[in-house]
């Protein structure tokens, strides 16, 4: 018997803002997060893509200097979001049983800056100069380990690594932890900091990135006929997930219920999505089933919608397969149009936005949708935020990743 799980705290640091409130206000207003990169290495390597969506607030200004030195940038961003979520849940002054507190924090790539900086140090200065902290900083579980340490979480620190599906998969792993009965609270989320010349060059060579160098703010344009690839972003999102029992016992404010979730895998191609979206379809269906929700309960979808020519269509096909006629009554937000693609953090940040949408009954906007692709006839929220109806309803957040990973979370209004 699965437990009723609720979300009591949110945290985020994104290209739109250094916390949830500033990110949310920007997402309602419609704010392009991508800008021309002002780093020497862009010119040094003559990169084919010269823009990305960097975080609005540098983590070094928020964390102490020793923390910054001992954490990869991805862990730094995760820690900033985790602290906000923890405080937002009102847990700062609460005695939480560490043996019943777990962490589930995802990343797509992990400490890529640390790995490559250390490689540069090795080649330029020799092995003696390689920092002893290199391995714990670069490992993908670096963030979940550091966060478990920071909050005294002793019931497990798990790391979902499923490329761009990681952030949502972290929530599903959190559900699994809570449903064991051994855990009361999970600090869940995802983080990514991979705006480094190597991933930029690699993604560009896959033809996955937008080349709209002359107009970065207009580059991420999910569902638009002129979309030409995704925009690299960085940041982190965090959610405090508790059993309802635990949340109510301490009188916590509940944003929404984490009602269900599911993962599936395509087994179709290592990077290309299944054109018929079968894996995605199964993930949405299973997520709704585990939420004990019917398709008609759903009013809002925060879509994966990365703005690649290939990727946006199968997600629509999957939604059509699950929702049928009801799809016309669902408003869809493609917030990557604003934030860029946060890879392993995307699903975490988008889950935060989905929870905010349900709590405030407002769906955030999709920007840059000038000419909607006729192959994707969705009701996309553009221009101004869409009011969601009153009463109980379900919102879903979908994430898909290289490797054929599909992860879908279903949230219900509190």
């Amino acid at each position, binding site marked *: 018997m699965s437990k009723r799980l609720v979300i009591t705290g949110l945290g985020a640091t994104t290209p739109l803002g250094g916390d949830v409130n500033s990110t949310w206000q920007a997402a309602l207003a419609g704010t392009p997060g991508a800008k021309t990169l002002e780093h020497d290495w862009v010119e040094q390597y003559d990169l084919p893509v010269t823009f990305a969506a960097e975080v609005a607030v540098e983590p070094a200004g928020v964390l102490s200097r*020793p*923390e910054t*030195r001992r954490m990869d940038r991805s862990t730094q961003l995760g820690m900033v979001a985790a602290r906000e979520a923890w405080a937002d849940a009102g847990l700062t002054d609460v005695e939480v049983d560490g043996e019943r507190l777990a962490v589930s924090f995802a990343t797509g790539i992990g400490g890529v800056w640390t790995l490559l900086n250390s490689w540069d140090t090795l080649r330029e200065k020799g092995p*003696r*100069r390689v*920092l*002893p*902290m290199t391995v*714990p900083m670069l490992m993908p579980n670096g963030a979940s380990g550091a966060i478990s340490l920071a909050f005294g979480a002793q019931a497990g620190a798990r790391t979902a690594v499923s490329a761009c599906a990681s952030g949502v998969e972290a929530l599903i792993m959190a559900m699994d932890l809570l449903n064991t009965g051994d855990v009361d609270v999970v600090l869940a989320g995802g983080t990514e900091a991979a705006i480094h010349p190597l991933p930029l060059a690699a993604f560009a060579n896959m033809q996955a990135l937008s080349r709209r160098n002359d107009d970065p703010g207009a580059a991420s344009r999910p569902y638009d006929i002129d979309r030409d690839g995704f925009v690299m972003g960085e940041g982190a999102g965090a959610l405090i997930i508790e059993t309802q029992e635990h949340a109510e016992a301490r009188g916590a404010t509940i944003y929404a219920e984490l009602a269900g979730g599911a993962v599936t895998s395509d087994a179709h191609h290592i990077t290309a999505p299944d054109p018929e979206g079968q894996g995605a379809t199964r993930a949405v269906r299973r997520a709704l089933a585990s939420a004990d929700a019917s398709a008609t309960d759903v009013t809002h979808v925060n879509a994966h919608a990365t703005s690649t020519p290939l990727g946006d269509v199968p997600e629509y096909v999957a939604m059509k397969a699950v929702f049928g006629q009801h799809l016309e009554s669902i408003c869809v937000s493609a917030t990557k149009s604003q934030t860029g693609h946060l890879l392993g953090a995307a699903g975490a940040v988008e889950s935060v936005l989905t929870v905010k949408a349900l709590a405030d009954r407002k769906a955030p906007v999709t920007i840059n949708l000038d000419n909607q692709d006729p192959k994707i006839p969705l009701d996309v929220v553009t221009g101004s935020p869409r009011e969601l109806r009153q009463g109980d309803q379900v919102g879903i957040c979908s994430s898909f990743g290289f490797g054929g990973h599909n992860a879908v979370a279903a949230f219900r209004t509190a």
Partner: protein
Amino acid sequence: MADKNAILAGLAEIVEEETGLETEEVQLDKSFTEDLDIDSISMMTIVVNAEEKFDVKIPDEEVKNLTTVGDAVTYIANAAG
């Protein structure tokens, strides 16, 4: 022989950078582990940074003999000759 006060000041900066401790806390009689709560990974980071800053070599097998800040200052002063 190198100026021990200058070495202490430089070492204190390295320790501050790594641990966040105030430079004034880094005194000659302080033990790295007992007083300054520096773990082995931080100690190795401090050693590597000290090697670079003072242009000396501190072999790994010597590091365990550097119990106090004073031990490290003396070692660096002698090594820098």
